[in-house]
């Protein structure tokens, strides 16, 4: 899993996962995707820092 906002962590993740998923990435497109992923990674870092315990089970169903 890619973590942290450092682009040097994100780029190899983008390359390897794109290959795994068979999504074509030329050089210019890779740069744009890395930029988006870096922003998502910043959000994920902040969200993942929020402590959750085992009761936070997403299969327990929505209130609606």
């Amino acid at each position, binding site marked *: 899993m*890619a973590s942290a906002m450092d682009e040097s962590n994100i780029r190899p993740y*983008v390359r390897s996962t794109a290959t795994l998923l068979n*999504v074509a990435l030329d050089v210019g497109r890779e740069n744009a995707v890395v*930029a*988006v992923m870096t922003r998502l990674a910043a*959000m994920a870092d902040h*969200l993942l820092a929020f402590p*959750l315990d085992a009761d*936070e089970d997403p299969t327990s169903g929505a209130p*609606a």
Partner: protein
Amino acid sequence: MSAVAAVTEAVDAIAASNGDLKAVTMLLEERALRRAREIDAAAARGERPGPLAGVPFLAKNLFDVEGVVTRAGSRATDGDAPAAADADAIRLLEEAGAILVGLTNMDEFAYGFVTQNQHDGATRNPLDLACIAGGSSGGSAAAVAAKMVRIAIGSDTNGSVRVPAALCGLFGFRPTFGGISKRGAFPLAYSLDTVGPLTRTADDLALAVAALRPKAAMGQRRDVKGLRFARLGGYFEHPVTPAVRRGVERVCAVLGVTETVEFPEPQRAREAAFLITSAEAGETHLARLRSRSDEYGDVVRERLIAAALTPSAWYAHALRFRTWLFAHLGPLFDRYDVLVAPTTPCEAPPIDATHVTIDGVELEKGPAMGTFTQPLALTQLPALSVPVFSQGEKPVGVQLIARWNEDETLVALAKGIAL
């Protein structure tokens, strides 16, 4: 007025202003006139064709229409098989007598807040043509604001009905998640997507919601006396423009809101909504991205490729956070029935702007529009954006948020708020 005359009037109104607005991407005149003749014939026989009899409406072009390719604002859908049936939302409105007259512009695949579509052009705000109409249901909003029709429907994943409603001075309704059928609407993120109407008046809002929620329309809470209100503070107070701040204060004054409460972890709620949208949209588009990525618009293509690569741990944690949020919203609604918050942080920004500066904070224009709608989308609560007008200013929107399945409370409140 006969249904045929109403359809003709709507078609003429679209022809008169759509060149500037780029709100409507497809006219369905022949279908609409056929339907109008049926309604007029039924009325002539003494039948009652429904509470919306002969009322023309428009639908965002991600809704299925029988015999039409569902474009979802993209060219990457060109060549897809035409829809076999109308989307449920279209069917329900037509069962109430309304008549679909066309389809509207949107952010490509509903992934945006601006309706500056690379293929169909930018939808302009009828109240200020230099400004955006908001998105992603921007064509629907502009069409209603320009009086092409009284009602249009859109989809709201993270704010895509409420944001354009706010920027165009309309009511924009996001139902309780699952409260209006989204069958036949092209998905963006399955666990966040909702379908809702945009209208100029509270009466039309009530008619549209009743048609779209036929099973819920009876027996739901409608008595607004004694409701307990609170305004959302903290995150929801900054950054906002002075006009937005005044709009929230005016709604609070009308409703008698004196208390302020904090929403639990709003920034993280927004982040979770972003990540869930990303993961689910990536899955939806993976096959198409593999085979037709060059047919996507540039911005949405890179966004969706990144979405397809979203690590599963991010998604799983976001889902678990949502469960935490559900548990912490319960106590909030033990104390209050309706919460109040701004819809967007600012009035409609210029089409050619890339950023907006609000309260001294510079923000990227598109994401900024979802600042206050996106955390609420994660909650699956019903939310209504109410328009607030002030002389000499562009309108702003104020959200009213109710408990799960108390959608009709919001519709009833709308009638008491004429700002």
